[in-house]
């Protein structure tokens, strides 16, 4: 199937804090030949309020998201968590609401970045090289809500000379959990430290993560612990291998 145009859902955390992750995804998609449709009105999927139990507020913001992506054929998102919100949780959030059918339709059209690349067979066309060891942390929402086993890992393994490593056993949560890490910072911090310790044992200096929320939390705790660990989004590592991406102004594109 010939590459076409995809809409991108930029998570609020990427929009406001880490725009470079969004640009990395956009650059990779463009390099692979996709047209990118960014809908300027988008804000957030509504998950912060949903997970806090404030469903009225969540519906208000999620309703805005439905409006923004009305008519979008295919939506790609660099977060397993936001993808899960649309795909798995909107059904419950909008159950019995006038927008229920619209929510279900959007749920069927959204994919997490790595899933999209694999389904499209695009990961095999990357043809790029990223030498060395790269740790990989799979987000809980990718793993357990979207049912991904190793999608992001398989994308990274398409990069030549890239040795992707993960700690043995069922992957543990990094401790982010949205407002959880604000309300219970002590617990969330301990969880991140436990998780980071596993990567430290593996001796990796670079870590790929498929969710900006995990990245925010892991970076904070890695810094606090004085670990010299470079933690970046899967899309950023792929963009680096391709020699594209970075935010505009940083040069690589245009």
């Amino acid at each position, binding site marked *: 199937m010939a590459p076409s145009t995809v809409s991108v859902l930029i998570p609020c955390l990427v929009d*406001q804090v880490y725009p470079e992750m969004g640009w990395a995804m956009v650059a990779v998609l463009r390099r692979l030949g996709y047209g990118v449709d960014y809908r300027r009105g988008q804000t957030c999927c509504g998950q912060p309020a949903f997970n806090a139990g404030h469903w009225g507020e969540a519906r208000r913001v999620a309703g805005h998201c439905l409006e923004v992506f009305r008519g979008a054929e295919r939506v790609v998102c660099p977060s397993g968590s936001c993808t899960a919100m649309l795909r798995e949780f909107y059904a419950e959030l909008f159950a019995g609401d006038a927008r229920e059918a619209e929510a279900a339709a959007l749920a069927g059209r959204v994919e997490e970045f790595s899933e999209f690349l694999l389904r499209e067979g695009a990961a095999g066309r990357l043809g790029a090289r990223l030498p060395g060891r790269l740790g990989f942390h799979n987000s809980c929402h990718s793993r357990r809500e979207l049912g991904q086993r190793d999608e992001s890992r398989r994308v990274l393994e398409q990069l030549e000379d890239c040795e992707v490593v993960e700690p043995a056993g069922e992957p543990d949560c990094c401790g982010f*959990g949205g407002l959880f890490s604000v309300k219970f910072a002590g617990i969330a911090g301990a969880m991140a430290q436990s998780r980071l310790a596993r990567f430290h044992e593996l001796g990796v200096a670079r870590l790929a993560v498929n969710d900006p929320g995990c990245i925010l939390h892991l970076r904070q705790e890695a810094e606090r612990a004085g670990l010299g660990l470079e933690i970046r989004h899967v899309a950023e590592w792929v963009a680096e291998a391709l020699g594209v991406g970075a935010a505009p102004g940083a040069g690589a594109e245009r």
Partner: protein
Amino acid sequence: MTARLREFRRAADERAADLVHRERIARVMSKSNAASETMKVRQFGDWERARRLAGQIKRHVLANLPDLLEEFERHATARGVEVLWAADAGEARALLLGLARRFQIEIAVKSKSMTTEEIELNAALEAAGIEVLESDLGELIVQLAGTRPYHIVGPAIHLTRAEIAELFHRKLGTAPGAGAEELTLAARDLLRRKFAAAGLGITGANFLLADAGAITVVENEGNARLTMAMPRVHVAIAGIEKVLPRLADLALFLPLLASSGTGQQLTCYNTLARGPRTAGEPDGPEHMAVILLDNGRTTLYARPAVRQALRCIRCGACLNVCPVYRSIGGYTYGTVYSGPIGAVITPHLEEQGRWEHLSQASSLCGACSAACPVDIDLHRLLLENRRRATAERKEGWFWAAALRAWAWVFSRRGRLDRLRGVGRLVRAAAPGRARVPRLAPRSFAQMWSDREQS
């Protein structure tokens, strides 16, 4: 913020920062999780199917709970078991003390049972002048230490051998620094004497079998079997959700419980009891009673959104895989049932207790739901508890106000663009700013607009 939440946060922060504790619990848990993973595959092949089937059977149980309990009562009564119903902890204690008086009990032995923890039975027995001794080694340790079970399956997993040696030295007079064998023998010696002297044996029940009118107790030490068989009177206390339709269901549930709980193929002792000693039998109790305990379970039952929590078989797997439990340990919860299942059920079992904050203390990572052998969607139930707490305005004004403001801003892109400058200023001035991410100089959206215009 309730006093309970304050205390929880304080204890959680303290425990979470305790690296020795974290290391210790992580070691115990990773060993048991690895054993459990291996056993699930070895024993079931398709573990997912096994747990879905178990979930289905429990779903059937809940759909027919009153009938199955009456069936159990009918069959058990026919074999001479006295079946008693307790609406709450107070009634259960009164029923048990009544039995103790009737049979003039002075000494009781008790096997491991979370239900008896729930009704705080030991304190009630002691207040009535009845000596009670825990017969499970882990329970005995926490009884001697004057504390509660740390974990629903492993009551003393938080203690090292050295700490137990010190405790036994003080309480039982063993040599200082005694080894594991010596400690076990000291406990065994004490227990054997009590088994012989006790008039009452108290157990829980892992399963109540409706068609057989029997109870099942699983264990690894043989102490529960002695507790049931040696004293003149045996009383089992079980939650009403413990019923299974058929004796044959044990073929699935015994290996399921063992592989999830302890990573064993089967626990070492799996005992069925279906009545007192009958004519011609050389041993067994003269009298057997089963107390069926509600104590808030019908509240859970009456709430369809959380009813599935009553499928729980108390295997402890959700505690073992929970990164929160492993960070804060069992005591921090302040509840009888800790970990994800404790956070899910306690606010319903103890409605006036204000335990909602436990459902907030989770990243909703879903490890508990993935591990549950009866397919309880635990993390979604935590979310449901949060939704309920919000709807009942139990959460306090701060988050309600903050999320309303958030929804106002994030439901219009224009508002977000205009206000992010304010957000940057607020962050720069905020006292806790290290925890708040620094906003990028320009948002992705603004950068996109810049590029479109260039």
